[in-house]
């Protein structure tokens, strides 16, 4: 059995930051228990010794598909900006600053 150690509150907040989620206090409390249950359940995969087994990332045997790097028309600016929460001229507008 591999690592089924409990995820700490500190780790949980670190993961939430990596995922850019500002969790509320009640969510943190609820998620702590749920994540530990889920991680405990999925850790089952480590029961198997699969050192000689290759990974599968895609279910079909497919070859890479290359396209020529040629410019072609894409979405007009107005359509690209049609769903923008906020815009300025031809740009998406966001609040300033913050090391994101």
């Amino acid at each position, binding site marked *: 059995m*591999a690592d089924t150690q409990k995820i700490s509150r500190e780790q949980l907040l670190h993961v939430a930051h990596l995922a850019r989620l500002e969790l*509320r206090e009640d969510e943190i409390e609820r998620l702590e228990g749920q994540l530990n*249950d889920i991680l405990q359940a999925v*850790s089952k995969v480590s029961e198997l010794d699969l050192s000689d087994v*290759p990974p599968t990332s895609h279910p*079909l045997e497919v070859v890479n598909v290359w396209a020529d790097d040629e410019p072609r028309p894409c979405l007009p600016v107005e359509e690209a900006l049609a769903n923008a929460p906020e815009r300025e001229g031809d740009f998406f507008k966001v*609040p300033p600053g913050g090391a994101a």
Partner: protein
Amino acid sequence: MIDTLRLSAEEARRLLEAREVSGAELYAAYRTAIDARDPELHCYLHVCEDPGGDGLPIALKDVIGTKGIPTTAGSKILEGYVPVYDSTVVERLKVQGLRILGKTNTDEFAMGSSTENSAYGPSHNPWDPSRVPGGSGGGSAAAVSAGLAPWALGSDTGGSIKQPAALCGNVGLRPTYGTVSRYGIVAFASSLDQVGPVARTVRDCALLYSLIAGRDECDTTTVELPQPVELPQAQDLKGLRIGVPRELNEAEGIEPGVAAAVQAAVAKLEGLGAEVGECSLPLSVEYGMACYYLITPAEASSNLARYDGVRYGYRADADERLEMYERTRDEGFGDEPKRRIMVGTYALSAGYYDAYYAQAQKVRTVIKREHDALFETFDALVSPTSPTVAFPLGARTADPIAMYLSDLLTIPSCMAGLPGLNVPCGLSEGLPVGLQLVGPQFAENMLFRIGHALEQAIGFDPVPERLR
């Protein structure tokens, strides 16, 4: 008078071609049914106005991008989002003259097995509105069963077409991975997501599949079908070998009434001339759930990174950018996407990647090999689709793992990229039981053949008893 509860898509198409009804009359008949029954069932998140034309109406799960028609994926973070282009499947339907009735309810980002994770409230099962229609594509399945659409498209990652079809008593196909374009579809877990048809008969299901399948330049994971789709004809099943995997048929949690209905259907398969034999998928079922609930959250955490409040969708008020991202995502996503984003981000993070994600990908190889080995002996595999009939609303919402177990029997074949067809096979406690047929990759025609023969032999009435 058009009886939308009884009319098959095939018959509707014949009526249109013979000019016995007009496209407008047909569309209006479904709109009338929606007005009458959808307030109770909540299958639709958005209902369209008749776009005109002479083709059949169709409903689309709300993860399918539609130009000019809101597409929310059941999430608050996409509230008000109106795509500026059509997904490839919608383009193909429009070329055939099909007309969109509306967008159907789904668990948020297709994450769930009951539609209870929809930010817009759950759908209800037409057989018993106090019960769930299954999920994530419960809106599409319930709409077809209740006569609110002749057929519909769903999407399936680990059972989201087959399981709701089972719980609502209709036919649903999860196609072979790569046969239907994902271009323009809201992504959940890209190595598993597949769009597929939901219909009232196997022939309708095959017909709809033929309209959407095939290679798409815009989705490089798609392939051309090795042979064209064939509408199944009445024929016996002589020469076919059908395997009954022990672990999928005897799993803990399968209700006795479900097991009995499936066993009776298996006896019918033998009566139709098929050779039936027991077989085993020991590791696929035991490790499938764990594998699925690592790989899909990992892919989801990456796919859902795009929802940042910058280009489309919901944005929370904030004075500073990082705060805006984090608050937008906290307020915009519901509990289930957040749980999966957290699990996925954790499983992909430094120090845990090898033990979780990389190991799960190896388990996926094991699952694929186990299925490949069975298809050297058998043409198709049979089992229940869902361990239970439709469960009451609220029964599994407090316990994420209990909800995850709803897909125990559909997940293994999805991990292997295999096609699966749900065919209704009877009732238990007055609710539909679904039978799952799984074949090798690209064996859709054979699944249609078996499903059609079984459907004819069983004579299941797909109209919910309370609506007859």
